[in-house]
C-alpha cells in the first residue's frame, strides 16, 4: 500500500472580505518590505535639540496613492454582482424602503442611519439567499389538452398522486352533525365538534384518535388552544376546556352562550362571540378576561381574527364588518361590505385581504391594510349565496354554496382552471350541507365539515410547502412542544398592542395632522386650572384667617390673569399663522373706485 499525501483544504481564492468593504480597503495597505513612511515634524515642534543631518541618497518617497474614488451609482448599477438575487425574491423579504438620511439632524446621526441601512440591506439579502435551502416545492395540478382542472374528481386526483398523499383524502360519516372543525396551527391535528354533542380530536395524518366523547349538550364551536394538547369547546351555556385525553380541565362560566371561538396564538387570547353580541377575550395563560363588552351587533355568527395584527373581524347582519381590539370598546374600523346581510367572512393568512360573502350572492375581496378605499379589489357574482369561505396559505379561495363547493386558485382574479375562463380550479359536490371549511396549514388539503360528517379533500398547491420549525413544526416531539410553549409564553404580546397597524410600536411617535389640528382647536376651549395654594403657617398675631384668605384670593387672581394672558397670546399666534396669507391677499387689492365699472369684466366660471 502506498500512502498518498492528505489532500490539502482548498484555499479561498480571495481574502475574506466584509460585506460593506470597498476595494480601497485592501489596496491602501503598505507593502514596501515592512518599511513605513514616517512623517518628520518641523524642527521647533520636535522633542530633539541636536542638528539634522540631511541624507541625500534617500530618495523622497512618493506619497501613498490616494484610494480610488467611490464608485458612482451608475458604475455600481452597470457592474453585475457575483450572485445576483432576483428582484421579486428580494422584494418578498424586504421590510420596506430605505430611510433617507435627508431629514436627519447632525452628521453623526446621518452616518449612523446610512450605516444601519447597509446592515439592513445585507440582512435582507442574506434572508433572500436562504431560499436556496428550502427543501420542498409547492404542489400543482395541470390539465391535459382539451380538459380543465375543474373536471377532475377527487377520486381521479387521489389515484394519480403518491400513496402518502392519497391517504390524505378520506371521508368520515358521523350522525351527530352539523359539524364544526379546526386544524392546529401546525396542521397536524384535527378537532371535530358535532352540534349534538360529539367531540373528537385526532392526529389526522396518522389517523390516530386522541379522544372522542359526547358532551351531552349541544356543541356550538370548537377551537384548539396554543398547544395540540388542549382545546376549548363552546357548549350550550358555557365554554369548557378539555385536554387531549378528553378530560375536562375548566369550565369558563364567564363565557356563556358562545357561538364562535377563535384563538390568537401570539397573544394567548381565546376570543369568543356570544349570541347576545358580547365579544370576550380570555387570556388562557393567566385565566383572566382581558376584554368583555357588548358590541351592539346582536347575535355574533361570523367572526375571524386577522393573523397580521390580531384584530377581531366580526360580520354583522347589515353587511358591515367591524374590527375590534380587546382594550378598545369602540370598533377600530367599520367596513360596509354588502347591502344585504352577510353570510360568511374570512381573512387570508397573510392578513392582507378580507373576503366577504353576502345574501346578494356576491363575494368581495377587500384590502384591509388600506381601509380608505370604497371599492373592493375584486367582486364575484355567484348563482347562490356562499355560506362558507376560507383562504389558504398560498392564496387559494374555497367557497361553498349549500352542498356545492368550489376552489379558486387565485384570490384576486378568480378562476384557475388553466384555460383563462373563470371556471373554478376544483369543484366538488358534497353529500350534505357544508357547515365548516378550512384549509390545512402546510398541507394541500381542504377540510370540509358537513351536516353528516367530515371530508378531507385534496387541493394541490394550496399549502405552504416549507414550514419554519421555530414557528410551527408538524413533526415536533413532546419535548420540543414544551420548549416551544415556554418560549411562546415568554414572548406573549400584551393585549394593549392589538392595533390596526402592527408595526406602530416600531415607528416614531410623531403626532398626526389630525392630532395637531385637535391640539390647536383645544386651545380655544381650555379652562383655567384650579390653584391649590397653601399659605405659609405664621406665628400667632401675624395675620389671621381673613388676611390669609385675602392673600390667597390675590394669588389666585394673579395666576388666573397670567393664564388668560398666556392663552390669549397662544390663540393670537395660531390665528396669525392661519390668516396671514389671506390677509395679505386682501391687502393687495386696490381700493374700489367709481371708474371700476368701465374695466373689462372677469371671465365667468364655466359650469362643469
Amino acid at each position: 500500500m502506498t500512502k498518498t499525501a492528505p489532500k490539502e483544504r482548498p484555499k479561498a481564492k480571495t481574502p475574506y472580505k466584509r460585506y460593506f468593504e470597498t476595494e480601497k480597503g485592501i489596496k491602501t495597505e503598505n507593502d514596501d518590505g515592512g518599511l513605513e513612511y514616517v512623517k518628520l515634524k518641523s524642527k521647533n515642534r520636535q522633542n530633539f535639540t541636536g542638528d539634522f543631518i540631511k541624507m541625500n541618497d534617500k530618495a523622497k518617497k512618493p506619497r501613498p496613492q490616494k484610494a480610488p474614488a467611490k464608485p458612482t451609482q451608475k458604475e455600481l448599477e452597470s457592474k453585475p454582482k457575483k450572485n445576483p438575487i432576483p428582484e421579486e425574491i428580494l422584494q418578498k423579504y424586504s421590510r420596506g424602503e430605505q430611510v433617507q438620511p435627508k431629514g436627519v439632524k447632525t452628521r453623526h446621526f446621518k452616518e449612523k442611519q446610512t450605516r444601519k441601512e447597509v446592515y439592513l440591506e445585507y440582512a435582507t439579502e442574506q434572508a433572500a439567499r436562504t431560499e436556496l435551502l428550502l427543501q420542498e416545492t409547492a404542489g400543482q395540478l395541470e390539465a391535459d389538452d382539451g380538459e380543465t382542472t375543474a373536471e377532475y374528481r377527487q377520486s381521479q386526483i387521489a389515484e394519480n398522486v403518491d400513496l402518502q398523499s392519497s391517504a390524505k383524502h378520506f371521508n368520515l360519516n358521523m350522525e351527530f352533525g352539523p359539524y364544526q372543525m379546526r386544524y392546529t396551527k401546525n396542521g397536524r391535528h384535527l378537532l371535530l365538534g358535532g352540534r349534538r354533542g360529539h367531540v373528537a380530536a385526532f392526529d389526522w395524518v396518522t389517523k390516530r384518535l386522541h379522544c372522542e366523547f359526547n358532551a351531552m349538550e349541544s356543541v356550538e364551536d370548537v377551537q384548539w388552544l396554543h398547544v395540540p394538547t388542549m382545546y376549548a369547546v363552546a357548549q350550550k351555556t358555557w365554554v369548557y376546556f378539555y385536554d387531549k385525553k378528553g378530560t375536562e380541565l375548566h369550565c369558563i362560566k364567564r363565557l356563556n352562550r358562545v357561538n364562535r371561538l377563535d384563538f390568537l396564538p401570539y397573544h394567548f387570547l381565546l376570543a369568543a362571540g356570544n349570541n347576545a353580541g358580547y365579544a370576550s377575550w380570555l387570556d388562557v395563560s393567566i385565566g383572566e378576561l382581558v376584554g368583555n363588552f357588548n358590541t351592539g351587533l346582536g347575535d355574533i355568527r361570523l367572526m375571524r381574527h386577522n393573523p397580521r395584527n390580531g384584530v377581531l373581524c366580526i360580520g354583522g347582519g347589515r353587511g358591515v364588518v367591524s374590527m375590534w381590539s380587546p382594550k378598545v370598546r369602540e370598533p377600530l374600523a367599520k367596513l360596509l361590505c354588502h347591502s344585504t346581510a352577510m353570510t360568511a367572512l374570512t381573512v387570508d393568512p397573510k392578513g392582507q385581504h378580507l373576503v366577504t360573502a353576502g345574501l346578494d350572492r356576491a363575494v368581495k375581496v377587500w384590502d384591509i391594510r388600506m381601509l380608505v378605499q370604497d371599492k373592493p379589489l375584486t367582486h364575484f357574482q355567484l348563482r347562490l349565496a356562499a355560506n362558507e369561505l376560507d383562504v389558504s396559505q398560498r392564496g387559494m379561495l374555497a367557497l361553498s354554496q349549500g352542498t356545492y363547493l368550489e376552489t379558486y386558485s387565485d384570490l384576486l382574479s378568480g378562476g384557475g382552471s388553466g384555460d383563462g375562463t373563470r371556471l373554478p380550479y376544483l369543484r366538488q359536490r358534497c353529500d350534505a350541507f357544508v357547515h365548516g371549511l378550512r384549509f390545512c396549514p402546510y398541507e394541500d388539503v381542504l377540510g370540509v365539515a358537513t351536516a353528516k360528517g367530515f371530508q378531507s379533500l385534496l387541493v394541490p398547491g394550496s399549502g405552504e410547502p416549507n414550514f419554519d420549525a421555530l414557528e410551527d413544526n408538524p413533526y415536533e416531539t413532546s419535548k420540543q412542544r414544551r420548549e416551544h410553549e415556554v418560549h411562546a409564553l415568554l414572548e406573549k404580546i400584551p393585549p394593549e398592542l392589538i392595533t390596526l397597524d402592527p408595526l406602530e410600536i416600531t415607528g416614531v411617535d410623531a403626532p398626526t395632522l389630525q392630532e395637531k389640528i385637535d391640539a390647536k382647536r383645544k386651545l380655544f376651549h381650555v379652562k383655567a386650572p384650579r390653584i391649590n395654594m397653601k399659605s405659609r403657617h405664621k406665628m400667632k398675631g401675624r395675620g389671621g384667617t381673613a388676611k390669609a384668605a385675602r392673600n390667597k384670593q390675590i394669588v389666585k387672581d394673579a395666576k388666573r390673569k397670567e393664564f388668560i394672558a398666556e392663552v390669549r397670546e397662544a390663540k393670537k399666534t395660531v390665528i396669525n399663522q392661519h390668516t396671514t396669507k389671506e390677509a395679505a391677499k386682501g391687502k393687495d387689492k386696490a381700493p374700489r373706485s367709481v371708474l371700476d365699472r368701465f374695466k373689462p369684466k372677469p371671465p365667468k366660471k364655466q359650469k362643469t
Partner: protein
Amino acid sequence: MKVKMISRNPDNYVRETKLQQHKMPRNYDPALHPLEGPREYVRALNATKLDRVFAKPFVCNLSGHRDGVSCFGKHPKQLSCLATGAYDGEVRIWDLANRASSRNFVAHDGFVRGITYTQDGGRIFTVGDDKTIKVWKAEAPEVGEDEVPVNTILSKFGLHGISHNRKENKFATCGEVCAIWDEKHNDPLKTLKWGVDTLHTISYNPVETSILACCASDRSIILYDQREAQPLRKVVLTMKSNKLAWNPMEAFNFTVANEDCNLYTFDTRKLQTPLKVHFDHVSAVTDVDYSPTGKEFISGSYDKTIRLYNAHHSHSRDIYHTKRMQHVVCVAWSLDNRYVFSGSDEMNVRMWKANASEKLGVIRPRERVNFNYQEALKQKYAAHPQIKRIARHRQVPRHVLNAQKKMRTVKEKEQVKEANVRKHSKKGKVPFVSEKKKHVLKEEV
C-alpha cells in the same frame, strides 16, 4: 393530468437516533412570522427586565487594612495585582484572582498619599506624609528577608501625590510644588510653581507623555509641561477639585472630581467651558478614574456611593452602594475593563463588576450570541417609555434620596428667584448663563 402534492419524507424532518440533533428547517419568509414588531418589543422588554434582575455588581470585599484606604496603584501589566495604601502608612499588595492580600508592609509614618508602579511594573513608588518617597521592589522579598525599600528619598517639601511618566524613567510629585524627578537621582530635575499653597493631585497624560495636570487648593487646575520651565495654563473653578483623570483614548480630555458634587470634563484646548458637567452625586466627589476604553469613568464620593458615567453623558449610568460602605476615598477601573475597585473609610477594598448584569465565568457561544442579541434589542427599543423607565430605575439609599430631593428644591428655588429678579430688572441686565459656564471662574495663561 399532471399532479403534484406536498408530500414530505419524514426522514428529512425527524432525527433517526437520539444522538442526533433535532432537524430544524427554517423558512425566513416574513409571511410565516407575523407580528414582528410587537414580538420584538416584548423580547426587548424582557431583556431589559432580566438585565435588572441579574444586576448584582458586587464581586468581593478585600479586608485586611487596619485603617481607611487612601490610594490605589494599578499594575500596568498584571491584571490580578493591585496595590493599596492606608491612613496608617501600610501598603498592601492584593492578589485579586485569589481575593487575598499577598504582601503587606508599613511604608510611611502617617498617611500613604500616593502609590504608582513604574511603566514596566518592576518597582513601586510610594509617597507619604513623612515627606519621603520610597521605592520598593514589585516582587515580594525572599522568606526570612525584611521588607526594605530599595531607595528612600527625603523631599524638602510636603508630598501629596505621585504619578509616573508613561514612557520615560521620570515621575512627578506634588505637594507645595510640582517636582519632576528622575528615577536615578535623589534630587528633583525641576520644580514648578504657580503661587499656590498645596497641590493635591498630579497626573501624567498617557499619550502626550510630557504633559501633567495638577489640582490645587486654590480651586484651580494647572497644566504643566515637564520640558518647560514654567507652568502652561490654569483654570479656576468655583470649588476645589479633588482628583483628576486623563481620558486614555482621547488624551486631550480630562475629568476632575469636584467638591461641589459634580464632575467636569475639560478639553485642554478650550478650558473656558467644560465639555460636560456630570451631575448626580449628592456630596463631594473624592476620586475619578477612566476605563481603558476611554468611554466611561467611575467616580467615588463622600455620599458613600460610587457612580459610573458615560464620558459624554451628564448623568450616571449606574450607582453602586452597600449598607456597610462608608465615604469612598479612592476608586479604580481595572485594565481589562471588566471590574472596578473602591476603597473606603471603613478599611475595606471592594471589587465590583463594571457592567452590573454581566455574567462571570465561561460563556458558551450560544449564550454569547443570545447576550449580543439582547443587547441589540435593548438599544433598539431604549427610547420606549416603559423600557426606559425600567432601565433607568435604581434603588438608592435613603440618605441619598433625601439629599437629592433637597438639592432639587434648592435648585428650583434658585431658578425661581433668578427668574423673578430677571422679571423685575431691565432687559438684558440679568443674562442667561448656561450650567456649564457657571462653574468656571477664569482661565489664566
